[in-house]
């Protein structure tokens, strides 16, 4: 099989995209031939970094004014129409999830989002993904080529790109602002508007507000998670303080984030961060599967909940059936005393 990777080099998340896809390819595409990595980017300044971290020896850089899905899709559609690539691999971020099915539609292929495992069978690609809100794992057979899939976040461990000094990378470049390229490749010769302008005609004004500083949850070793059962913002604020006293990072479940009791960058679960700490303490979390997926790579899960029948109890290593506030207040006191005695690393 021949596969092509598509990455968004306009985003600060480029490296994690590259390593995510590289890890997946190493796990499931050992027998496949990597055709190239297509990287959309916005500034020449980052080119050496993008090329160095491209997961394949061959890289196609496509420069555009900013990440804009309509431009990217028009470009990929034109560029790849005659390609014999069988599989397009996209990362599991917002960009990958929106581009993969739309590209499949345009190229007459088939697509699946949030894929966590693949295998090749004759005339089909077998893909696995979570369905039923992460309670079930489904197997699908994709039959129409090209297959365009985006990955499930956290499905494989990220794999850093190997630096091979003796291998020269094959790099080709396109600047879509280049009118000549528009005229020849996209066949819009003579048009008043350039191709990027056409694809973005619906956008009258654009502003980008950079994300607030990363919460650190993705790489935290120790996290405390507030669930729906905390019931109000003041309690989440208090848990934030407790997390600090415990030396942990605070995360929240979706109901807490959707009630705006905590910022979205604290959201853990399939629609947020996939954490992989050594220790995860959940407070008043029920344990819905879509949330649990975000902590399932924790080495040790400790659940504190008043309901012994809550799903999180069975899905944890250790559980305390009690009021989370009382337990955590006591735990803070114990740890503070231990710190005074020099009995802990915190």
């Amino acid at each position, binding site marked *: 099989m021949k596969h092509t990777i598509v990455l968004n080099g306009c*985003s*600060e*998340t480029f490296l994690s995209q590259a390593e995510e896809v590289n890890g997946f390819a190493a796990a499931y595409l050992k027998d496949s031939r990597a055709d190239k990595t297509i990287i959309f980017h916005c500034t020449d300044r980052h080119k050496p970094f993008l090329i160095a971290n491209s997961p394949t020896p061959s890289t196609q850089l496509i420069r555009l004014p900013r*990440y804009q*899905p309509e431009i990217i899709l028009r470009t990929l559609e034109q560029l790849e129409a005659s390609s014999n690539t069988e599989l397009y691999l996209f990362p599991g971020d*917002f*960009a990958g999830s929106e581009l993969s099915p*739309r590209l*499949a*539609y*345009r190229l007459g292929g088939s697509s699946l*989002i*949030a894929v966590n495992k693949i295998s090749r069978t004759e005339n089909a690609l077998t893909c696995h*993904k*979570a*369905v*039923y*809100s*992460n*309670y*079930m*794992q489904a197997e*699908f*057979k994709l039959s*129409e080529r090209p297959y365009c899939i985006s990955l499930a976040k956290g499905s494989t461990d990220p794999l850093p790109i190997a630096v091979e000094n003796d291998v020269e990378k094959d790099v080709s470049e396109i600047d879509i602002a280049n009118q000549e390229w528009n005229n020849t490749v996209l066949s819009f010769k003579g048009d008043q508007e350039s191709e990027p302008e056409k694809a973005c005609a619906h*956008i009258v004004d654009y*502003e*980008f*507000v*950079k*994300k607030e500083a990363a919460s650190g949850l993705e790489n935290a*070793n120790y996290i405390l998670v507030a669930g729906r059962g905390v019931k109000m913002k003041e309690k989440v604020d208090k848990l934030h303080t407790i997390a600090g006293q415990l030396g942990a990072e605070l995360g929240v479940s979706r109901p807490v*984030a*959707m*009630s*705006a009791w905590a910022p*979205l960058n604290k*959201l853990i679960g399939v*629609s947020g961060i996939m954490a992989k700490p*050594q*220790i995860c303490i959940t407070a008043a979390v029920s*344990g819905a*599967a879509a949330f*649990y997926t975000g902590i*399932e790579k924790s080495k*040790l899960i400790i659940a504190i909940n008043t309901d012994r029948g809550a*799903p999180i*109890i*069975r899905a*944890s*290593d*250790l559980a*305390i059936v*009690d009021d989370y506030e009382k*337990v955590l207040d*006591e*735990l803070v006191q*114990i740890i503070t005393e*231990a710190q005074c005695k020099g009995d802990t*690393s915190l």
Partner: protein
Amino acid sequence: MNILTCFKIVSDLDLMSESDWVVEDHFRINTSFVKNMINPYDESALEITLLYKEQAEKLGSAVNLSALTIGSKQLDAYLKTLYALRFDKAVRIENQHDLRFSPDAISTVIANYVKVIKKPEVIILGRQSGVGDNAKTPLLVAEHLGWPCISQAVKIEPASEGLLKVSSMADDGLVIETIRPPCVLSIGNAPNSYLRIPTLKDKVNYGKKEIEVLEIENYLNQAVLEQPSEGHNITGLKPINHKRQGVVIEGSTPAEKAQNLYHNYLQERLKQL
């Protein structure tokens, strides 16, 4: 401006117990005994639509809201609630076919409905729903119509001259765009977007309007309905095992339990962090 908001009613899967996850013929799972709800992303889509209408009308712009769902007569109760919340039109496309994993079929139906009524300039949908977890319907509606799509939208405000100001989440920030319709908006994680509850008075005054019921066969080929051609077929389904040891730490007080947790399980681990 004419806005069509599409929504799906789903079972509250978090209420299913472990033993309820039984795979039946054709990879079906009986979820009928748990309560239904509006898919959370679609709930956000509906509330954001209502917020937009309120803001636009304050600025003197007329907004006509339609709500569309696909399914059986049981869904009419939700459509009546939307009438009570002052949606102008509630439409249900009758369907009994299994379209759980058929976002292309669903998006074709929505796109064909839009082509027939020629009305909405804006289509708003939640980005994903449980059961199928396909996360493709808004994107494919846009493709079928040849419209642009803004995904992960979290806020929609009126702008001058029939334009929309749309805020959407990107992987590394927030994008705020002023958009000229037509467009499809796919709603992502939008905090504070739980659907409002209608007043009793509005339920009485508006909740009894007639729901327009259409046949799905008018919008999708019968053969496709019976065998949706999605380029993919489901060939397996099994529960995901989330079980761990679940050792319950005993103690007569919270203090005793915390002591037990710290001394027997946490102390050494914390030193290694």
